[in-house]
């Protein structure tokens, strides 16, 4: 004789809720790995600035203005051959975004710990609406985004969207193949 469905699911849930322990060395491995990362710059100012930059706000919305801005954001990723001074596996990538009204644009991604201060983009002189940044990348998969005027996150419309973005902001993916 079968138990009612609710009892059956209840039994399953009770079993699955029991504690599960993993290797006690996991904590040490995590800490060993994070200690090998570049040290954080101490000081709450950077964190405070980051919080200010990324905090959601209510802003005046002008549909025509938003459409204009959206229409001009076009980005491409340009590949450039390795420079002789780089390791063989490292290639330089040029990131380009069109943002005519922007005051500042930063390239942020897995390659710079999403730090807006580390890769500021530069205007291209002959066309001031175009911003670029060139960075070396080793083979791998990187998520990235553009941070415009410190407040607007933009995924790259010319690149695949990051489907596994766990942080809640739009981002794109570039995959660098090995040589």
């Amino acid at each position: 004789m079968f138990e009612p469905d609710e009892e059956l699911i209840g039994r399953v849930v009770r079993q699955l809720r029991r504690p599960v322990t993993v290797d006690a060395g996991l904590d040490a491995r995590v800490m060993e790995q994070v200690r090998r990362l570049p040290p954080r710059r101490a000081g709450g100012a950077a964190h405070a600035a980051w919080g200010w930059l990324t905090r959601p706000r209510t802003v005046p919305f002008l549909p025509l203005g938003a459409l204009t801005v959206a229409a001009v954001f076009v980005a491409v990723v340009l590949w450039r051959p390795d420079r002789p001074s780089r390791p063989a596996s490292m290639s330089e990538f040029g990131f380009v975004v069109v943002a005519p009204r922007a005051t500042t644009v930063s390239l942020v991604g897995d390659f710079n710990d999403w730090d807006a201060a580390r890769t500021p983009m530069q205007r291209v002189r002959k066309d001031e609406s175009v911003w670029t940044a060139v960075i070396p990348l080793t083979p791998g998969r990187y998520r990235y985004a553009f941070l415009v005027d410190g407040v607007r996150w933009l995924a790259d419309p010319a690149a695949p969207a990051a489907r596994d973005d766990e942080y809640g902001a739009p981002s794109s993916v570039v995959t660098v193949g090995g040589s």
Partner: protein
Amino acid sequence: MGIERVGTSDVEAVRRVLGGDTDAYATLVARYRDRLARYAVHMLGNREDAEEALQDAFVRAYRSLERCDDAARFGAWLYGILVNRCRTTGARAAKRGRVFVRDEAALNGVAHASAAEQTEGEDVVRWALGRLTTEYREAFLLKHVEDLEYEEMARLTGASVSALKMRVKRAREQLQAILREAERV
């Protein structure tokens, strides 16, 4: 219940880590390890993959801690990272042909409530869970085992509340069917 059990201690630990005190992160790892491990082990079906996903989630969270804009909800934020890591690890495991294999060692540390309910019953439950699709298993575990609200699940998974309700319902139906079938054999 939910996953926001954190209080000022999480806020303080996050503040210290962001201030350059790397060792403070050990507090957060120790605090969340076991609970996250339960989800990862059930989601991935074996301890090796679960530990890989868990370690990766902790390291990614450390690297991106500036993006946790509400330290009081560090646990929920970390959970979201783990959910994604489990998806990635699970997909990779599926590609190499190891899909939800049994791993007795994963249950070595389990505190058994009663002898009658352990061993065979647990094996059957885990086997049945492993026959669900990734989406159904994820939804079932988050709703019924981790006891999350649908709104929180939607934030973690990126799926809509209605889609998640459907997945949980289907998961329950399939689990029942699988277990009923097992009882007949």
